[in-house]
């Protein structure tokens, strides 16, 4: 018999009848603490104050967030521990399952109506399972992936009933640790035995991430014929085509995924982005509108959706002025953007520029210039710079608005920070032919390459010297700073030195604005962690 008297429960359902009835069932199971909420927003607020052991959440709450959205927000905000049992209650589980995301699934689905015996049977099993998996979950709480792996093997060896859950946690840990070969071997073994949906999706995404596009495509395609209702497979196929540059095909697959599961913010966001790039402004506008809507009151709201909507409305009109109706929507969207992200000057700058472009086309050059001037002032005060992609977009907008000098200055900074990436230099070259910008980094890049060679030959002091020279020439470059920091750290580990530690911290502070999406971000994080541990 499981003792429920000390477990804290939260019941979330929009019908008070249901809340009362479930609370009654729980009382019969000796549960003492039961809180109840009618809306997902309330549930999230309550989870801020109380750590619940079990959450019984209705999927379809009518207006407001659905159960899946609440679960994702709880995860994102770190308000739910891996030890917590989250049960999704639905009148029809298949619909809720279609919506669930691979990374964020409830522990169980419970189909309504259910009786006390069913509830108790299910909870007994879940409590027992969480208890058996405790070593794994403890390691997850500490974010110690190596320990997760060890715990998975240990729990599986002790009780093979829990092998399915252990294998899934194991795959997650292998992925987090970047152990590609082992992850691939595990997933291949699993799907060779049975077509396990999560393993199929994970393997496809893995192949996608390492650039094995053909393998990923054939896996996603064959999986779709078997599981036509899994939107993640369509997302994967869309990503394969996008990576190949076949953006029209990519858009088609995303739309198929959206037909199955339209309420996904991320998916609408992607569709908006792709459709806009494809010049399919009608679809882009519709998708961004949905994304803006879905993001309201959500932690996943993204300024790119507002900007994408306003830009698409603007671009739809071509060189003409947008219609009065479109103009109104542009103004409203950018107004919302300004309010919601008023503390983010980068977002404001981008909003200013979209607005300026729309206004300029109506013939009001003075208003456009004023907006550009505002943006320039903000840009001068930026504590850190844009990502390469956004910098390129901002430069193009400046250029288009007739401010070539400002465009060049953005490109120059972009070249300094990201210029060691040939693809970015190529994109910069498509916007300017100014040799000062295009060649400014050559000397530093040569030094950096020589530094890498020395480092590979384990000549760390020489490497450090070369990286330092590169960094002196281009202090804002992310690669040079990271390389310097890493070489310094090498020496530091051999012999502690306060000066070297300072230098290392400085290098890292210099690039602290590195976007989390940058491929160098994990390396940056690792360096920060290592130096902090000294």
């Amino acid at each position: 018999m499981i003792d429920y008297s000390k477990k804290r429960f939260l019941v979330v359902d929009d019908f008070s009848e249901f809340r009362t009835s479930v609370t009654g069932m729980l009382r019969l199971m000796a549960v003492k603490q039961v809180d109840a909420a009618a809306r997902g927003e309330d549930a999230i607020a309550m989870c801020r104050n109380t750590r619940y052991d079990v959450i019984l959440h209705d999927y379809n709450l009518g207006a407001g967030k659905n159960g899946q959205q609440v679960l994702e927000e709880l995860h994102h905000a770190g308000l739910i521990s891996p030890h917590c049992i989250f049960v999704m209650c639905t009148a029809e589980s298949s619909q809720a399952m279609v919506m669930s995301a691979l990374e964020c699934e409830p522990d169980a689905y419970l189909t309504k109506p259910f009786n006390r015996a069913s509830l108790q049977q299910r909870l007994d099993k879940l409590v027992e399972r969480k208890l058996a998996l405790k070593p794994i979950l403890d390691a997850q709480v500490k974010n110690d992936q190596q320990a997760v792996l060890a715990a998975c093997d240990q729990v599986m060896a002790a009780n093979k009933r829990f092998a399915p859950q252990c294998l899934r946690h194991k795959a997650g840990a292998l992925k987090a640790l970047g152990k590609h070969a082992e992850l691939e071997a595990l997933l291949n073994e699993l799907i060779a035995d049975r077509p396990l949906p999560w393993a199929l999706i994970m393997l496809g995404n893995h192949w996608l991430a390492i650039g094995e596009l053909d393998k990923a495509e054939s896996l996603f395609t064959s999986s779709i014929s078997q599981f036509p209702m899994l939107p993640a497979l369509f997302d994967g196929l869309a990503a394969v085509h996008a990576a190949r540059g076949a953006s029209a095909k990519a858009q088609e697959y995303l739309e198929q995924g959206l037909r199955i599961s339209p309420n996904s913010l991320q998916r609408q966001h992607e569709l908006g982005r792709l459709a806009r790039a494809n010049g399919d402004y009608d679809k882009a506008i519709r998708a961004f509108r949905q994304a803006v809507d879905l993001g309201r009151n959500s932690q996943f709201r993204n300024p790119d959706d507002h900007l994408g909507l306003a830009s698409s409305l603007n671009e739809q009109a071509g060189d003409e002025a947008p219609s009065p109706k479109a103009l109104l929507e542009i103004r409203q969207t950018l107004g919302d953007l300004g309010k919601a992200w008023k503390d983010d000057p980068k977002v404001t700058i981008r909003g200013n520029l979209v607005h300026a472009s729309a206004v300029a086309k109506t013939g009001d050059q003075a208003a456009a210039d004023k907006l550009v001037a505002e943006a320039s002032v903000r840009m001068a005060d930026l504590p850190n710079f844009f990502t390469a992609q956004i910098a390129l977009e901002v430069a193009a907008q400046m250029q288009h608005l007739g401010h070539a000098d400002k465009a060049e200055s953005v490109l120059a900074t972009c070249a300094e920070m990201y210029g060691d990436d040939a693809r970015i230099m190529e994109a910069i070259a498509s916007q300017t032919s100014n040799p000062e910008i295009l060649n400014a980094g050559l000397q530093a890049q040569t030094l950096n390459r020589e530094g890498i060679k020395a480092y590979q030959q384990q000549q760390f002091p020489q490497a450090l010297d070369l990286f330092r020279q590169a960094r002196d020439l281009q202090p804002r470059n992310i690669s040079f700073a990271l390389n310097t920091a890493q070489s310094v750290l090498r020496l530091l580990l051999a012999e502690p030195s306060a000066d070297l530690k300072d230098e290392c911290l400085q290098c890292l502070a210099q690039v602290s604005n590195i976007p989390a999406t940058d491929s160098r971000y994990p390396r940056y994080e690792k360096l920060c962690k290592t130096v902090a541990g000294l």
Partner: protein
Amino acid sequence: MSDEQQKQQSDPEAPGGLDFSTVIASTVHDMKNSLGLLMQAYERWSSALPPELSETAERGMIEYESMRLNGMLVQMLGLYKLGVNQLPMRPNWLEVEDFLQEQLARHDEILRSRHIEGSYEVEEDGLMAFLDTELVGSVVGNVINNSIRYARSAIQLKAWVADSQLVIAISDDGQGYPPSMIENQSEYVLGINMSTGSTGLGLYFGQRIAELHHRDEVKGHIELRNDGPLGGGEFRIYLP
């Protein structure tokens, strides 16, 4: 009637036209919700009554029929989604014992109020299986509902592995299936003979769900028998 009118009448996608299966699907969905609320209200109401008023034959009847109604609605929605190729299949590894316990728990009150003993047996301790709980659960649930009607005192769920297929059998101590049904089961399964109404439809649904579970070239199937371990009818679902 002009060609244009003709087209409008026969084309379900035409504006203003009605695609009847979509109507059914969305209505069934609402009916299920409505039934759920009805049952909750009923439960609250009956639990407030003194035992001499609540422990009546009508109570068992209301509970049983609402369960059946729910099962039929689930089945109807399932058949609709099968028809439009939108039935989500999400198989997973699970412990067979858990699955059987879950099925019995769903019928706990009805079994008790009808004094029917529900039991289960898994041949091998810790037996794991790969199946879609939701779909197979709805088939097994409907079979149990049906058995409750005919069982005298006992229903048994049993699971074992034969020829590397999982077999789940639901048997009772009633009088068994009519011989004609056993003889013609292949027709029900193919959806040819629907003369027995919901039972025939249930067999068709069960077969389709079983077939969704396949491995290599082997497809799942169902089988009806009358030599069950409790003396009555036995329904088997084979899942490779």
